[in-house]
């Protein structure tokens, strides 16, 4: 999908403590087939930042994702892609 994780509303929070980043995130569905891929991408990208040594990912299901979590940019990108949101 042509939309980033933040605009899709998947990222619930992010804290940085020294070299450690904690990201809490959710997925659009519990059976999201891309969840492992997404977490791998996040980990790889954050570890590429200077000074980051450890990435913790916390998958959150409450509150669950709904389309209301899309940012206006995300909404527009999905519409342009042909999804009705």
């Amino acid at each position: 999908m042509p939309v980033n994780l933040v605009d899709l509303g998947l990222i619930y929070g992010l804290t940085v403590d020294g070299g450690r980043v904690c990201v809490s995130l959710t997925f659009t569905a519990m059976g999201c087939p891309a969840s492992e891929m997404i977490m791998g991408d996040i980990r790889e990208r954050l570890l590429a930042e200077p000074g980051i040594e450890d990435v913790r990912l916390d998958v959150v299901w409450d509150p669950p994702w709904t389309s209301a979590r899309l940012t206006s940019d995300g909404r527009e990108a999905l519409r342009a892609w042909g999804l009705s949101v």
Partner: protein
Amino acid sequence: MEPANSGALEALLKRGELVESTSEMTPDYLRELKHTLLVSGDTELISAPAYYLAARKAPSVNAFMTGIAIIQDELAHAHIAYHILEELGESQEALIFKRDPKAFRYPYAFDVPLESWTELVVANAMYDQAGFCLLGDIHEHGSYGPWKRGLVKVMAEENFHLRNGRNWSKRISQAGGEAREELQRAVDWMFPLTVEWFGLPDNLKQHSTQLDYRLKGLTNDQLRQQWLSTGFRAHSMPTRSAGTSTIRAAGMRSSSGGASGGRATPRWSPSSRRASPSSRCAHEFLPAFSRRSGAPRLPAFSRRSGAP
């Protein structure tokens, strides 16, 4: 309906316009279009059971879900092609369930069973990348409107499949040791089979009606080169120094197998575009789709009932 005359069709194609209905087609165009759709539908369909055998070996529940999601996509892609064939007057039911398994048309690669998760992800990186090139060409250059539009989402989904292949290949390669050797063996035997996927070299192919009718835009060699350049650049399988595996198959052998250990040797031949009689797909997978006599048939939705 009176078929269009070839002059009108030729002019339409020259103007770069799209064919939208059978009334604009000549019988020749219709035949070529149907053939191209059939190869596409059969290839997507056969990939589902082929991938399923390997997806069962997924290393985690999440990986299994990814495998199953890819298989579901492939069935949907097959359905798009068969559905268009139905609109062109063929019976989807007959195409899928009543055909002789040996009549299915798909690349030879699918006759060689995928036996591990590693082999599945290399197939995602190579076969799905090949599908991505071939369908991308039809999506970009194809002259038949309904198919061109149907491919928009197919392309997005194929992108997911090949990314799964690339990500996992990288991960397995970085793990090193036996995992990486298994990855290398998979690359070694799948590479020549995917090269074969694109058909005869241009210099052996006299003439392409598919190109005349703009059912595709690029020649076999152009598509093969595109596959080589997109599939094996930085992300997926370049050099050993980048921590991934090498392509050793540059010199293609007509019966490769030395590197694949105890595996049944693929009998590779550049022209075998259909199931060989002894192939596993033809004998095991396809009959599984066929209805046993006496099995209950579900009532079909009528066209007006608002079926999805």
